[in-house]
């Protein structure tokens, strides 16, 4: 299956080009070649299939996978190192009635082990076995699963709301990427097929002239909303969250069913997000981050070990957080950033860009003069953002939780259990010494979380306390 997909994907484009270039007389050879290729693929796939075995070593608590036709591969995973098991079903797999099981461990950002084509009962069985590392837990039957009532069900209307209120940035990036790749492939096509390029560009230019700029913007806006909506609906249709024997099970997806099971202990960082619209609708967006090989917490893309819960109500959010072991004790201390935060933000976000633009307009590129009034708009816009960022930026702490609130639009809380930190870094610039300021960074297994421009003297006892929590703790941090 896999082999076929790979080869088809790699060969498709050249093949298409060859087909286009060839005349009819050589067609027979192409057909024969394709048939031969298919047979070869089938043979390789069969060999791969019969050499792929896996089993569970109950005594050593290990999961062993053997694969490889010529070079033999044996992968052994200790059960307690597994942090997430995914059961996915793509459209093709749905037709055949099989699932793929992905096993995720810490330390690598790609899925370490993937078992394709398992039937339903086996998939569920595997999932249960792999994530229950207590021996007594192995005795439960699969049928129980259906009896457990899901505690979180995201309704279609909620998904609709989520779709139109969130992830604008991601969709815009998607559109830009799409346009970019469309343009790229368009050029490729014109080059390979040798279409009269000038003619086509002429048509395109004319097309652009028909649309006015504002209409184009409106179109983009509608497109963003539409893509968001469709993406959210397809991805999260039928979102269900269940607690099963100490683990959280999540399933969602319209076409490709995704089924995830994770242990709450493995969650290193919880992010609760809410933008302005979502606040009005009383919806939260919760992200669970697990140990990953990336540095930056906010890095998008490498999402293999991130779980998203789109759109949950305040009470549901509370249950999830409680289930993760995040206490809801009252906040003991709130740290606010120093006013120098504003100085830095204004310096970097307003003064520097404005000066550069002015210099460029005056000395290098004079046509820019016409656009200078827009600079006022830019300054106002950045001012508003900086103000809200500053207003929202704070560090909240209680006995065992560290909370960082940040951002202007997508206001997020980064929640982190203090005993799970990997280390603490403080950074102090010499011009901050007299002001008693420090930049604080918590290193977690899911990435770094920082709070800048904090009062050092007030922070010191808390740093000692967090270290005390981490060093005293006999619990596994994952």
């Amino acid at each position, binding site marked *: 299956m896999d082999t076929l997909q790979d080869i088809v994907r790699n060969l498709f484009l050249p093949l298409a080009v060859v087909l286009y270039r060839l005349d009819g007389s050589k067609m027979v050879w192409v057909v024969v070649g394709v048939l031969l290729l298919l047979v070869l693929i089938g043979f390789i796939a069969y060999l791969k299939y019969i050499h*792929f*075995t*896996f*089993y*569970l*070593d*109950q*005594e050593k608590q290990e999961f062993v996978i053997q694969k490889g036709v010529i070079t033999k591969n044996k992968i052994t995973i200790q059960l*307690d190192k597994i942090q997430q098991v995914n059961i996915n079903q793509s459209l093709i797999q749905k037709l055949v009635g099989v699932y793929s099981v992905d096993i995720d461990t810490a*330390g690598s950002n790609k899925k370490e082990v993937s078992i*394709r084509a*398992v039937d339903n009962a086996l998939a569920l069985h595997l999932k249960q*076995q792999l994530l229950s*590392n207590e021996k007594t837990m*192995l*005795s*439960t*039957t699969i049928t*129980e699963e259906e*009896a*457990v*009532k899901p*505690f979180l069900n995201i309704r279609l209307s909620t998904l609709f709301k989520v779709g139109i209120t969130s992830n604008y940035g991601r969709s815009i990036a998607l559109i830009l990427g799409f346009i970019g790749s469309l343009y790229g492939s368009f050029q490729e096509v014109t080059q390979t097929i040798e279409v009269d390029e000038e003619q086509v560009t002429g048509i395109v230019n004319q097309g652009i002239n028909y649309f006015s700029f504002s209409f184009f913007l409106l179109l983009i806006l509608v497109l963003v909303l539409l893509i968001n909506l469709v993406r959210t609906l397809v991805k999260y249709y039928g979102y269900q969250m269940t*607690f099963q*024997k*100490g683990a959280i099970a999540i399933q969602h997806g319209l076409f490709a069913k995704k089924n995830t099971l994770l*242990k*709450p202990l493995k969650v290193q960082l919880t992010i609760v997000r809410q933008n302005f619209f979502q606040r009005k609708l009383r919806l939260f967006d919760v992200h669970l981050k697990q140990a990953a*090989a*990336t*540095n930056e917490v906010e890095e998008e893309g490498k999402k293999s070990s991130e779980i998203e819960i789109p759109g949950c109500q305040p009470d549901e959010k509370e249950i999830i957080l409680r*289930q993760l*072991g995040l206490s809801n004790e009252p906040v003991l201390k709130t740290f606010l950033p120093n006013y120098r935060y504003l100085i830095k933000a204004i310096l970097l976000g307003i003064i520097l860009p404005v000066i550069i633009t002015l210099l460029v307009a005056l000395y290098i590129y004079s046509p820019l003069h016409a656009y200078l009034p827009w600079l006022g708009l830019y300054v106002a816009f950045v001012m508003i953002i900086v103000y809200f960022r500053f207003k929202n930026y704070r560090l909240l702490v209680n*006995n065992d939780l560290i909370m960082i609130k940040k951002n202007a639009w997508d206001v997020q809380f980064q929640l982190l259990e203090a005993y799970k*930190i*990997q*280390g*603490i*870094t*403080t*950074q*102090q*610039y*010499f011009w901050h010494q007299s002001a008693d300021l420090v930049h604080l960074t918590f*290193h977690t297994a899911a990435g*770094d979380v920082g709070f800048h421009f904090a009062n050092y003297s007030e922070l*010191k*006892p*808390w*740093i*000692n*306390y967090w*270290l*005390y929590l*981490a*060093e005293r703790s*006999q*619990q*596994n*941090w994952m």
Partner: protein
Amino acid sequence: MRQEHFTNEPISFEHLPQVEAVSFQTIPKQYLNIVYINNALLTVILGMLLMLFTFFNEWIRAQMLVFGSVLFLFIGLLFWMSFIGYRKKGYAVREKDILFRHGIISTTTTIIPFNRIQHVAIHEGFFSRMYDLSELQIYTAGGSSSDLHIPGLPKEEAEQIKTYLLNQISSQTFKTPEIEFMEESIPEELVPDESSTTQEAASTDDETV
């Protein structure tokens, strides 16, 4: 709740060991020599580049004085920065964690608890070996930003610290309390009853797909 003997007495911050009271140990003087050797090498390379340019480029030959002084200033700054960077470097090994301080225009202090260390390595550079110095590298699960690289330690001391750290790591016995903790917090109606029929364990049959 999370541990069998869980206590939760209020902790007074004054009685906690204080990070700010730690006195850092400095890096031996020879390390500065190594940094200077590296700087000198860079100086030689840059100087040679400038020489080459003055030979082959008319314009640069005319501006020789400007380029020369810029290079001189740059080298001076480099040595000065290296010295400050050396003076700022310091480390401290406490009972349960290790601290490293460094930086030039800022002072960065990183603290890594022993029980978060994944592995420890010792790296010896070419020049370091001449002075019998080595770099202690401490890795955590927190990614490269939280890894400690303490340079310029005398080789024996680095080995000693490494052994000490490894002993500390291996002596820790972890319990796995997560399951009991979870079951307590699940609402009762959601907990499936445990007295269900036992099933044959799956390990015995090698499942082939």
